[in-house]
């Protein structure tokens, strides 16, 4: 982008404008369907104090700017107990013009710049990322250990499957499923192997923008050197980072797609044909990074026209990111095409989907918060009547599965790509597991 998408001046203006109306604590008012699932903010649901809400964080930013609060552990403990899921922003921007998520992110950036953020655990994974290219501090050379020998990779393909750290080291089943699906469709794809590095999302979201920029440049240099035309991501976090955040700092000219978008295309084109009944009832969890935050910023170079004192309008109107352009239909279209599968929805979906609780460094710095959020979501999934929870993000996968375990839930969890494999008849064993105990 040629212009800074959220300039300092805007930040300073907006932090004075919170109405303290508490709208940020709930999903959009017109979407509330029950008392139980009205809330939108994991941090508020767990910690209760107003400071943990989107609005509370804006007030904190103002208090910090005015010198009313000084950097302290107390401050960091609030600022970093937030998954940056952006649900508060959707609720606020339904009518208002503030940018709670941008403020939260910029406030973290300032704390890092001022030498206080992020949290020690986050600093540790940042160091790991710098050293071994992944925040899990796993050896870089083991990054492709997930790749089974029978999967065909085409080193000349201009279609790149960017696996990401979590799928490479922690959720290998996702990487394998994605690769097998592409093989099944006969789509040649490449993987970067030694040249794949962390996308930088984990550090970006803690406010360490400088470390993020290094990572971003490293990645884009590789992609550009290889003449990549399209990148496929099975990780919603990597996808969002490439799609939305990278262009804020450096332009690129390849296409980015999440696997659900790509696989939907393959199904449409008849390259993937579902042959096997998968008689299960599932509910789909929209990952934040694939949904509401996956809207690319649109460049705006219009004029601000002062209509009258205190009232200005933008000509043309400034595009407002309100989650409407997230990837919501593709995963649902895929699920609805799987024979025998029944999709039921939770109450909080799409742009007002409830966060799994893992993002923005919370899983490492505040694991308890991550689990508690996940349990909230698990309960909602159970209440939908489904017995299988499905999503499309390895980070959500890890945290939701941890939540299932911790809460003793009978829910089973699968990534959407695993269900596709079942429907393609390529994973009969998993299909037996999935349908065991009745659909």
């Amino acid at each position, binding site marked *: 982008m040629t212009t800074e998408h959220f300039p300092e001046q805007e930040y300073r*203006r907006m932090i*004075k*404008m*919170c*109405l*303290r*109306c*508490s*709208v940020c*604590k*709930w999903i*959009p*008012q*017109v*979407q*509330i*369907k*029950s*008392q139980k699932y*009205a809330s939108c903010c994991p941090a508020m649901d767990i910690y*209760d*104090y*107003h*400071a943990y809400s989107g609005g*509370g964080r804006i*007030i*904190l930013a*103002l*208090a910090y700017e*005015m010198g*009313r*609060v*000084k950097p*302290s552990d*107390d*401050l960091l403990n*609030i600022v970093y107990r937030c998954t940056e899921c952006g649900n508060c922003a*959707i609720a606020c*921007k*339904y*009518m*208002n*013009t*503030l940018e709670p998520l941008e403020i939260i992110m910029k406030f973290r950036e300032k704390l890092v710049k001022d030498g206080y953020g992020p949290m020690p655990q986050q600093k540790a994974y940042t160091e790991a990322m710098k050293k071994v290219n992944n925040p899990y501090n796993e050896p870089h050379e083991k990054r492709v250990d997930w790749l089974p020998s029978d999967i065909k990779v085409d080193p000349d393909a201009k279609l790149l499957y960017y696996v990401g750290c979590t799928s490479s080291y922690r959720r290998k089943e996702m990487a394998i499923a994605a690769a097998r699906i592409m093989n099944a469709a006969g789509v040649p794809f490449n993987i970067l192997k030694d040249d794949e590095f962390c996308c930088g999302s984990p550090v970006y979201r803690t406010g360490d923008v400088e470390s993020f920029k290094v990572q971003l440049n490293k990645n884009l240099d590789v992609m550009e050197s290889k003449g990549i035309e399209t990148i496929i991501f099975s990780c919603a976090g990597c996808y969002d980072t490439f799609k939305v955040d990278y262009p804020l700092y450096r332009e690129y000219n390849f296409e980015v797609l999440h696997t659900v978008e790509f696989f939907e295309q393959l199904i449409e084109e008849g390259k993937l044909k579902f042959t096997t009944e998968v008689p299960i009832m599932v509910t789909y969890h929209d990952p934040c990074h694939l949904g509401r935050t996956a809207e690319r910023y649109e460049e705006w170079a219009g004029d601000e026209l002062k209509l*009258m*004192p*205190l*009232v*200005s*309008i*933008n000509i043309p*109107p400034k595009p*407002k990111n*309100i*989650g*409407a352009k997230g990837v*919501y239909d593709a995963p649902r279209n895929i699920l609805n095409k799987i024979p025998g599968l029944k999709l039921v929805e939770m109450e909080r979906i*799409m*742009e*007002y989907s409830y966060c799994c609780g893992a993002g923005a460094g919370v899983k490492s710095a505040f694991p308890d918060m991550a689990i508690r959020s996940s349990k909230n979501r698990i309960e909602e999934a159970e209440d939908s009547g489904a017995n299988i929870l499905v999503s499309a993000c390895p980070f959500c996968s890890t945290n939701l599965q941890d939540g299932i375990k911790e809460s003793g839930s009978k829910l089973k969890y699968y990534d959407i790509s695993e269900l596709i494999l079942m429907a393609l008849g390529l994973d009969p064993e998993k299909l037996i597991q999935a349908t065991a105990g009745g659909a």
Partner: protein
Amino acid sequence: MLEKDILKEFQDVVGPEFIDDGDVMTNVYAYNWCTEFVNYMEGKEPIPFSPVPKAVILPSTTEEVQKIIKLCNKYKIKFKAQSTGLGPWNQPSTDNSIILDLRRMNKIVKIDEKNLYAVVESYVSGAQLQAEAMKYGLTVHMPGAGPMASPLASHTSMAGPGFTSPQTGHSARNVLGVEWVLPDGKIMRLGSLGQKNNPDWFIGDGPGPSLRGIMRGWVGAKSGIGVFTKVGIKLFPYPTDTKFVMTGHAPLYNFEKPDYIRAYVFDCKSWKGLEKIMLRVEEEEVGFIVSHISGLAVMAIFSYSIEGLMDKMALGVLKNPLLVVMGARTKREFDYKQMVMEDILTEYDLENIIDTKYVPEKVFYAECLRANLGYHGFIATGGFQSAKGQADAAALCLRAEKTNIPLKQKYIKKEAIANDFGEGAWMTSYEGGHFFHMESPTMFNQSDLKSVKGMANYMDESNKQDLIKHLGAPFFIEGDKLHDEWGPHMMNYHNWLRKIKAAFDPNGVADSGFYITAKKECENK
């Protein structure tokens, strides 16, 4: 911050994680919307922060609230309770104060389908309660602030006009049984809830007189007379079918418009005409929303951004607009109500612009049903507050509105407040048109010092004008200074109120910055 041993005693009540006396947390709770101009009106620096509370405490039960208040009495610390927390009246007036954030008291105790009421704790929101009540075909009165506000706060402590007031009344008048922790720490249960045998929530008065009389009045005591922990509130029939199907994405959700809902906006052309028609529509009992709003406000309720607002400039030429939204449960009811409305339109030669000149977004109807229209007031400048707030006959409200226009124009000229031609108004009727209230929403920029000061001066002058011209008492006559100004012109009510305060809060611990202090305390000040 609290002294260590005092903090320990509070911690013993709620657990250490639910009290925070650190600078970070207490500063967050010192902020609120409109605090900057309230500060300025009180001769303080116009910043959006009130005095910083000594601590923030989050009780989870009535018994915990009681223990907290007893400790406040023991250590002569004031307390200020808040629920969803919108507005300066949630703020402490002194730094010798703690805030009780009632967030953890969030249960819908019951929805009584047969007796047509609900019992809620402090932190249930209007939308939450409505969503649950809808499962029984019922709804709840929600204040103009919107569905995110706490019905308990609105019913027990804070104003109470709402968009659906023609059919859902006024918060203060919908109160049944109440559980109330008095400023001395005693728990009082009003009406049938106070019985020793089979206490229940169905009535809040008696035996004999009704203590609701000292509980809140028209504007609410804003925690100056204790903390309300549970309240029984009436439920009303939901105006149409309760399907509420919403698809698409924010903000222009594709709401599946119920079969039997219809909106009317028409220009009554004159003040007299407006009064006559508004009363007539109410007498016919056809609308669940019957609101007079200014031309600019008509545009605002249909807009979701400032640019969208300006697109609708053509709608703004309405001189004396009236918004009527009717709903029905059956086709017969719908046909009847439409017939009545058509007859009124014909009789007064009115033109409904809805679906003729302008087709609203479908989500508009969802917002009508969920009482979310007030929020549109923030579109133009990001901030507004209402002057006025008098409530009596339609004629008084309209006169107050008319009288306010030149005053408002003066401040518009000074570029202190946004230009709504001086006309900004919301007037709604209650209980089928038995009384009305009018407020004058005024758009200002809370991040602009000049605007903040201008807004404060305008509010002050508007109040004075109402006093001199006998135009009724506005909402925000609260706090000692204003009570001392207004009391002598209103039967010296302030003296009686002070006696109540003194009798029920002997140690003056219920923070009364937005209520009244007992005389003795005032003298000490």
